[in-house]
Structure formats: C-alpha cells, structure tokens
C-alpha cells in the first residue's frame, strides 16, 4: 500500500517528442519563409489603407446596360466553354481511364496511360491555355482545349481508381458465359462504375466552370478577358459586377451538381 503510494503515477498522456519537434520545425520554417519573402507588418498595414480605397472604388457595382451586355456574353461564353470541355474531356477519359486500370489492361498499356495522365495533370489549366492560344489563336477554342486536357487528367485518374476497386466476381461471371471483351466491358464493368463516373463528371463540370472564368486572362475566351481588361483599366466597379456574377454562377453550379449527384447515387 505504502509502496504503491510513494511511486509517482505515470502521466496519462506522455509527451510525444517527435511530433513536438516537427511542430517546432514547422513554426521555424514559417518564420524563415516570412523573412525570406520580406513579408512585414508595415507592408500589411499600408496595404490595409489601400484596401479601403480599393473597396471605395468598387462600390457601387457598375450596372450600366452596355457593361451588363458585355458581361452577359462573356458569362455565356464561359458556360459554353465549360460544357463543351466537360463533354469532350469526359468522353475521352472513359477509354483513357479503362486503359489505366491495372485490373483490366495489360501492364505496358496501363503504365503508358498512367504516364500520359501524369503529364496531363501536371500543368495548371491557365498554363495549358497559354500554349493553346499560341497553337489555335485567341478565343474560346483555346480555352476549351485547355480545359479538355485538365478534365482528362482529373477524371481518368480517379476513374481508373474506381475501376480498380470494382468487384471482380461479376467480371468472372460474365466471362464464364463466353462473353468477349466488349461484352464484359458493357455488362460487367460499366454497370458497376457508371454511377461513380457520372459523379466525377458532374464534379468536373463544376471545376471547369470555375476555371473557364480564368482562361480568359491569357486569351482563352470567356468572362476572364473582360474581367482582366476592367482590372487593368482600374474600372473596379465593373470588376465587382463581374465577380458577383461569377460567384453567383459557381454557387448555383454547386447546388445543381449536388442535386444531380443525388439522382445517380
């Protein structure tokens, strides 16, 4: 009894030194990076002053009829870019994703498909649209092609993972009936993965809508061009109108895509 009482109880939660050191390391890095980037409090305070002026010039949003017409056509073009890029991007990801799935395709094919997907995924859509603007000229086509590239990268990577997770028994059952490759694909693989594929496509439409408002900054068509022009001319009230339109569109898209995904679940 006395022996047990004299021994100190071990702490309920021992100190985890490696984790604590890692946190200290992260904090030190943050300080180091802040000094390297020359982020000082003084600059921040000066900026706040600028920010007040900036907000003052933004309000009220510019609602002139000619501006609204310009913005309307830009928004419409952004939506068209997103729709077409999603449609063709998703259509092309279907074979690419199947080729990348290791349980369906032979090794050499799935590795080369995976390599292609890695290349497609690695560049931001805005950088890809710079290259397409040079190749096919200014306008919506460059934006569409750029977003097709990024859609293919995203959808086919995740689609390949979905196909790899599917149940192999149904594939074996259909194959046992003597079905050829295409029949296996249509009757065993697609029914299992189609719902997830539609979900991915809807998600991609959402993300393409966001990016289609951006490609215009480098000449890829859509609302980005009038946005950037207004910004460079310091027409901040027009910028605000465009921003409100973009945010409204994206919130609407988020609601709609949530509904569609529920239908297909």
């Amino acid at each position: 009894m006395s022996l047990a009482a004299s021994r100190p109880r071990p702490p309920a939660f021992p100190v985890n030194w490696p984790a604590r050191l890692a946190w200290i390391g992260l904090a030190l890095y943050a300080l180091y990076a802040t000094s390297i980037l020359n982020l000082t409090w003084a600059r921040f305070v000066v900026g706040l002053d600028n920010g007040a002026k900036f907000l003052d010039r933004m309000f009220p949003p510019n609602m002139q009829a000619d501006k609204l017409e310009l913005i309307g056509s830009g928004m419409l073009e952004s939506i068209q870019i997103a729709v077409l890029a999603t449609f063709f991007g998703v259509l092309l990801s279907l074979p690419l994703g199947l080729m990348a799935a290791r349980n369906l395709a032979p090794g050499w094919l799935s590795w080369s498909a995976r390599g292609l997907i890695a290349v497609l995924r690695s560049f931001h859509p805005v950088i890809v649209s710079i290259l397409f603007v040079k190749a096919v000229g200014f306008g919506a086509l460059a934006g569409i092609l750029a977003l097709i590239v990024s859609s293919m990268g995203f959808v086919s990577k995740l689609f390949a993972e979905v196909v790899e997770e599917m149940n192999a028994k149904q594939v074996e059952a259909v194959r046992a009936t003597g079905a050829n490759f295409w029949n296996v694909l249509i009757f065993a693989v697609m029914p299992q993965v189609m719902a997830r594929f539609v979900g991915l496509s809807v998600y991609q439409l959402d993300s393409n809508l966001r990016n289609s408002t951006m490609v215009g900054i480098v000449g890829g068509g859509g609302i980005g061009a009038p946005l950037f022009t207004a910004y460079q001319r310091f027409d901040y009230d027009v910028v605000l109108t465009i921003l409100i339109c973009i945010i409204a569109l994206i919130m609407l898209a988020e609601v709609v895509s949530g509904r569609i995904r529920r239908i297909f679940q």
Partner: protein
Amino acid sequence: MKETQAPPDQARRWQRFSPAERIARSMLAIVTAVAVVWSIKTIDIIPEFLYDAPEQTADLFKRMWPFDWGFYPKAVHDALIETFHIATLGTMLAIVLALPLSFLAARNFTKSPVLNFLAQFIFVSSRSVNSLIWALLFVAIFGPGALSGVLSIAFRSIGFIGKLFGEALEEAQRGPIEALTAAGAPRSMILAKGYWPQVEPAFWSVALLRWDINIRESAVLGLVGAGGIGVALDSALNNLYWDQVGLILAVIFLVVIATEIVTSTIRKRII
C-alpha cells in the same frame, strides 16, 4: 442504385430503377444533349485561325527547343524558391485561419446553427473565388509581390481545408469525448485529447492534398503579378522568348512531379 421490387401481383418483374429515377435519368441525358448542341452551335470560334494550327504548333516546339539553360540561374531559380515558399506559407496560413472556423462549422462541437451557418458561408465564399481572382484583388490592395501570392493562396484554401476538416470533426466518435467530459476535463483538454487524435489523420491528409494543389496554383499567380515563377513566365511570354518559356514549363513539370512523389510518400508513412 436502389433495387426496387415491383408489387406482388407481378412479382417476377424486377426493375433496376423506379419510374421517378428513370425520368430523372432521361431528363439529365436530354439536358446534357441540349446543352452540348446549344454550345456547339452558338460558341464563337474563328475557323480562319485553325488553318495554320499544325504549323503554329510545330513552330511553338521548334522555338522552345533547345531551352535557354542560361536563364535558369539568372531568373528561374530564385523565382522557383519563391513559388515554393508562397505555396507552403499560404497553406500554413490557411490552416491557421481555417482550424477555428472548422470547429465553428462542426455541428457536434458548436451547437449554434447561426455560428455553423456563418462558418459555412465563409467557406463557400472562399471556395467560389478562384485563386487567380483572389490574386488580382490582393495585388490591387497590397501591390505586386509575394505577400499578395501568400494571401491569395491562403484565402482560396480556407474553404477547402475548413470544409473537409469540419466534415472530419463531425464524424468523430462521441465515446472518448464523453469519457473526458465525465472525468471533468477542461474544454481545451477535450479538444487536445478527445477530438485531435481522432481527426489527426484527416487533418494531415487534407493539408498535404491542399499543399500539392497549391504548388501547382502558385506557379500561375505570377501571371497577374503575385510573385513566384509565374512572373518569370509572364515576362518570357511577353518577350516571345519561347526557349525560356520551355525551360520554365519543364521546371514546373519537374517540381509538380516531385511534390506528388513527396506527398504520396508522406501520406503512406503517417496515415
């Protein structure tokens, strides 16, 4: 995919979808077809530009190769390091700002619908503005440079990190938290020893995922003046020095691949 059984009088007829599901599915197919056809018919594409697209593309690659290697030590290296710092610091700032908000958004931790809604509203507005647009706004306020880049990365990431981490918090088990409450632990201890061990894997996976995305995104912020390698890219593009553009694109490609390898290794280790 629900399997619905027909009424017993026609018990042998099995249908995969209910009539309402079928109508919804066919409606969606029709809407998709109409949207695609409408977009193709009305979109403004200038076919004259397309005639010389193959030559333009060939020309593009011919001008890119060989790369202007001398440009790397001159302008690319420092910009690359700056991009890395912008992405990392932006992610860290976003985590610091998003953590308290995600506790406000989690309905099991904060039992006030008003605060839940407020936090959700901040997340949605952060996510619906693209990082490039955030960068435009911050460049107008703070001037060109890395400060605007860090802030735009952070503000775009708040919604992403906060939403996913808030969902992880809502999925936390009640057991350990009730045990700590019953033992009389203060609220800070419940946080540190009840919630945190349960959500730590989710936290790291969300943070790593966003860091990976932010490395890609910070490479383009310079196009609107928010610092990093995008500034070098922008000036090379404006000068039509395609050999420098090619070098910068190759560098970005390598960095993105390296980041992906690093994040997937860390993820396998700690999660």
